[in-house]
């Protein structure tokens, strides 16, 4: 099966019904995407499929053929994505386990709604669970990233 992940073509020999999460983690060794629930309840496994956030724990790898897949590893090579920078500035992570899913969802949110309100953030981010309770800081970081992306665009 041919996959395009973070701009790179990858060929994997797996049962195409295998959920994409396990292809990423066990076959390709890309462990930034996390396993949390296995039934699309927590969002720790979120990646982008053609820019849209999707749950890799329930979607078979075959569904990703011919699509552009972006994982947390593909966001930047040096933590320079504005969302990553905002996450660092607000010191969001605690245990950090859910944060790849949070960040990938936040990136997609800002792409869709460049200046999200608190309500937008509540709606778009609520599917992604954080057991440590970093929600307030996530919200602050999303506002900060959106602000900085807007300023960067207007410069």
């Amino acid at each position, binding site marked *: 099966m041919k996959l395009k992940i973070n701009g790179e073509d990858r060929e994997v020999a797996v*049962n195409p019904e*295998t*959920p994409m999460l*396990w292809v990423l*983690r*066990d*076959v390709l*060794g*890309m*462990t*930034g*995407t*996390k*396993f*949390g*629930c*296995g*039934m699309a*309840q*927590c969002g*720790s496994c979120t990646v982008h499929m053609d820019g849209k956030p999707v749950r890799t724990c329930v979607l078979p790898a075959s569904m990703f053929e011919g699509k552009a897949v972006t*994982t*947390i*590893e593909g*966001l*930047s090579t040096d*933590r320079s994505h504005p969302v*990553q920078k905002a*996450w*660092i500035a607000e*010191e*969001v*992570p*605690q*245990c*950090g*386990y*859910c*944060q*790849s899913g949070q*960040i990938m969802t936040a990136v997609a949110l800002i792409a869709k709604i460049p200046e999200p309100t608190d309500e937008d*953030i*509540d*709606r778009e*981010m*609520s*599917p*992604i*669970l*954080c*057991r*440590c*309770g*970093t*929600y*307030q*800081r*996530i*919200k602050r970081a999303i506002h900060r990233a959106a602000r900085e992306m807007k300023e960067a665009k207007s410069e």
Partner: protein
Amino acid sequence: MTKTSDLNRRDFLKASAVTSGLLFGFELRFDGRMAAAATSGDPKETSLHAFIEVNTSDRVTILVGKSEMGQGIYTSIPAILADELGARWDQVRIEQALPSPAFRNPGRGTMITGGSTSIRENWDTLRNAGAAVREMLITAASNRWGVKPSECWAENGLVRGPDKYLATFGSLAIDAGKLTPPASPTPKSADKYTLIGTAVPRRDTPAKVEGKAQYGIDVKVPGMVYAAVRNAPVFGADVANLDEVSKVPDGILAIEAVPNGVAAVAETWWPAKKAVEALKLKFTKTDADGLDSDGMTERFRKALGGKGATAHTEGDLEAGLAGAKRVLDAEYEVPFLAHATMEPQNCTARVEKDGADVWIGSQAQEIVQGVTAQLTGLPMDKIRVHTPFLGGGFGRRFESDLVVQAVTLSKKLGRPVKVLWTREEDMQHDFYRPASLVQFRAGIDGEGKPVAWQNKVASPSIMSRVAPPMVKDGLDTVSVEGAFNLPYDLGAVKVDYFMENSHVPVGFWRSVGHSQNAFGVECFLDELAHAAGKDPYEYRRGLLSRSPRHRAVLDLAAKEAGWGEPLPKGRHRGIAVHESFGSYVAQVAEVSVDKAGDPRVHRVVCAIDCGQVTNPNTVEAQMDSAITFGLSAALFGTITLLDGQVEQSNFHDYMILRMNEMPKVEVHIVPSTEAPGGVGEPGTPPIAPAVANALFAATGKRLRKLPLVE
């Protein structure tokens, strides 16, 4: 400079400290199961080398012997040591240590990360270790310069002296390493702190925003295979038909019995999971097969009618009640709770003939060593326990059940094995926060003041499993913590514990006994205030003459919340205060109730007095975290039993708070130079009663059973 010589030189200071013997005498305590894990404990190994290495390249390496599970300890311990040392924060490198008795908290028989102890129980040890190395560096410099040590000082990674003398730590490392560490170093005074008390950025943040932080689940070892497990659904049962299911399907390497269940092993995890789920397993019968949650409550109620163990008694309860103007009774109940760490339970083991490696996000690495030693027959010092980041701990990762399965499989198969549980296995095979049924009886006088307070607590005992010698005459003090040592003036007091164990394994869950007892105590106190016709804040305040620290956080939370000031229509406040793990926390919750009767928590104002603060940013984060954790439990959290099995299985039926349900949390820290208190747990106990009390204010209906949302 080659890498080898660099390492050799780095070891200079480290090596000398090893030979220099004991700096900080640790009193060892062996109790129950922990003793087995701690048999290699040699207090003589304890020395400052366990914490700090200074190399000739001017790098300061700090070894952290605590597990980072979100609480920020990976940054806080190095910050304390670096501050005492006088190091520059950017010259500090942090390394996760392998287990050693040197990393035990003073007085404890085994290494733990838990009980909110990492700073408060090691505060002196850490500061002394940093101060000792600083004094050694200063002595080395003063010898070199021919001046008195008292004329020299350390700051920003330099030792300075008179006449503009100046030397880097690195240039002093070899000389300092030849010195005998001072027996009683002098830590800095608080006004000299440069890092302690400041918001030092967490060192683990960068890796956690780019998916590079390694958790146990991410460990990959050459030749490793993956195992998925099905545990017997009723605790204590076993697989009854292993011979019928042991045929190994195509693509699977093995089907193996493991303690508590059966495992399928494959080259990747997904096929193993599919295979183990496809097995048509039958399980042995147990006495608990017919038990459900109502049955458990009845067992508690029956236990309360029997003979309890008195945890605390003060004055004459019967006389107090007899003399009361009014007597109130109430019964409170809380359910079993799962930890539900975001990272499902996992463990990787590589058992070889002459040694073993175990990779697990553990809160108790020496117990992992001990369990591995028992299973393999290897000596403790041949067992290396590697600690990656923990995707949440909350007490779940004290347990070694996954170690048993991974080591058993690796030993059997002769290959490294990673055991990973599904969320469902994790949810249904936890060591749960004990359920409890609690009865209160109190008398108030004509002015509404309490004259008698009786509290009877029935619940399973954690310590009777993990450390039986700590249970004396039927009393597990952990089960009644937060109930037997109240700060209020209550007149005559009697608190009894009624141990009622079941087949459901119980364990440490963020704030442990406090998590259940604060709910009943702080709600029932609210009932007394209401019966007395008093404001619940003022009522508490009036009963706290013996504890100014309780009163101060209560006042601060009330003030910041605008207690007594008008609220928007439909909003109501509740208040609670509770001390645990050496810290004092008060919270005011603002709630409303929607048309369907469901509560909504809008705002939580939290005041904490945790003594000397190490990192205010961490304290704030831990309050956010503990409140969210406690609120998930208060609103939705319940683990129920049906036919002896846990009914919940995943986040759809064991709900945790989501972004849209998160209140605005405001944290206020009381400035203090008191000894440090804990921070990881104390924010959890007050939130359930604060919310329940606010709901009473909103509806006039007293909710005495958790969770609050049906």
